[in-house]
């Protein structure tokens, strides 16, 4: 389980997180939602120790990661996988080499075993045919799937997703959402998903938390969120694109 306690973070004069408290249950999919620019990605980067908070704590299975040394953080990160917003694939490596990268860094597997694992992971995300392609040759959705295969390469316990469906067409959004759900089920993963995609969240989340003005203003199951009386949450989940409303 991941427990975030009173987390504060400011960049210069801009206070992004103002005391976030949140529990992320083990073996479930938790969505952290909110408007663009409210610090959702900042929060996610704190969970994996890429950013250090000004105040507050993050406990991963009881261990306060804000107090770990760089070396201890490296050890902890091997339990995590992270899918970045634009994929963050290494553009000098092929898709297959990208997926093999964490295996070559952290395992003593033979080249043959690595190849087999890479093919299995790419097959899992439906991208085996792109194994020899360069990231620049992939579409947005393919990049995210390749990045997901890389994030899953080391069979992590916790996977963090930064806007996994943003910028994709509705069919690809559905495909990625289904992939997250299936992967979570198959490996009993703890998934943390940053998103503002309301239909996807209601379809696959076990828990949804709303981040607004630097704090969590509402959290609960999708059903509880649907019935929330909080004005921001109500307007967020019922909001339609402006042009649509005018029409």
């Amino acid at each position: 389980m991941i427990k975030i306690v009173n987390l504060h973070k400011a960049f210069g004069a801009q206070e992004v997180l103002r005391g976030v408290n949140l529990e992320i249950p083990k073996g479930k999919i938790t969505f952290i939602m909110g408007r663009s620019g409210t610090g959702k990605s900042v929060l996610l980067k704190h969970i994996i120790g890429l950013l250090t908070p000004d105040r507050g704590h993050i406990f991963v299975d009881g261990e306060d990661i804000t107090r770990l040394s760089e070396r201890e953080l490296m050890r902890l990160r091997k339990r995590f996988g992270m899918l970045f917003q634009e994929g963050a694939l290494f553009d000098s490596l092929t898709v297959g080499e990208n997926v093999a990268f964490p295996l070559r860094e952290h395992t003593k597997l033979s080249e043959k075993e690595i190849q087999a694992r890479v093919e299995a992971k790419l097959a899992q995300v439906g991208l085996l045919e792109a194994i020899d392609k360069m990231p620049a040759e992939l579409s947005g959705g393919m990049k995210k799937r390749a990045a997901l295969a890389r994030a899953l390469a080391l069979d992590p316990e916790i996977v963090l997703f930064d806007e996994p469906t943003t910028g994709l067409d509705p069919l690809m959004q559905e495909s990625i959402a289904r992939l997250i759900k299936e992967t979570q089920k198959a490996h009993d993963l703890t998934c943390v998903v940053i998103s503002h995609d309301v239909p996807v969240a209601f379809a696959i989340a076990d828990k949804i938390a709303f981040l607004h003005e630097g704090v969590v203003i509402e959290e609960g199951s999708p059903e509880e969120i649907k019935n929330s009386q909080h004005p921001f949450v109500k307007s967020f989940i019922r909001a339609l694109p402006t042009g649509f409303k005018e029409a």
Partner: protein
Amino acid sequence: MYNPVAAVGAFSIRLVEEMGGMALMFLKTLALTFKPPYRIRLLIKQMEFVGVKSTLVVVLTGLFSGMVLALEGYYGFRKFGGESLLGATVALSLVRELGPVLTSLMVTARAGSAMAAEIGTMRVTEQIDALSAMAVNPVHYLVVPRFWAAVLMVPLLTVLADVVGIAGGYFVGVILLHIDAGIFVAKMRELVELVDITNGLYKAFVFGAILAIVGCFKGYNARGGAEGVGKATTEAVVIASISILIGDYILTSLLFD
């Protein structure tokens, strides 16, 4: 309202911050050098990029520097009949000064800028965060191979520039200006000492370290998309070039005292 005192203060703080950041990256690079895994393949790839692929530009720079030195030197020496010193002057200027400095400046423009651009792009596209998230130290993976590639290859390129430059000087002096070949070579052998060559190579080592650390540091700390990468690349070339010239003066006063 523009406040000149505040502007000077802000500039000074930024300068100290940047110098401190570069010093820390240098120390971190040295410390991580001895930490496994040893990335020999990455080192060789960078040595090829920094060294082998800079050969042509360094040969051209060395050649024409040696040729123009001979031409200018001949013009000066002829005024008092000192043409016999031309070979020694060309060789001394090259091995002590122009070889290491011009080579480093060319490698800065070619490879230092590429280091800043490549690492900067990786920063703004979250590839460096991805390395950290995969429990790989980005300095170990990105900076250490580039640093040692530059430290090892810039002296080798300097030797190349020295040799080609002297050959260029010989061509202009002996073939075009008809100075006696025996005198040209004899004076050069008489007046150029081993210490001139080794001190020139010490400079090249240091300049290689400077251009790599500045290039990697500026790329590593790039912010703000394509514009940020462009700015980091420009700053890397300007700061590394100025640091090499300042470092050159300091090293010359220390080494050749």
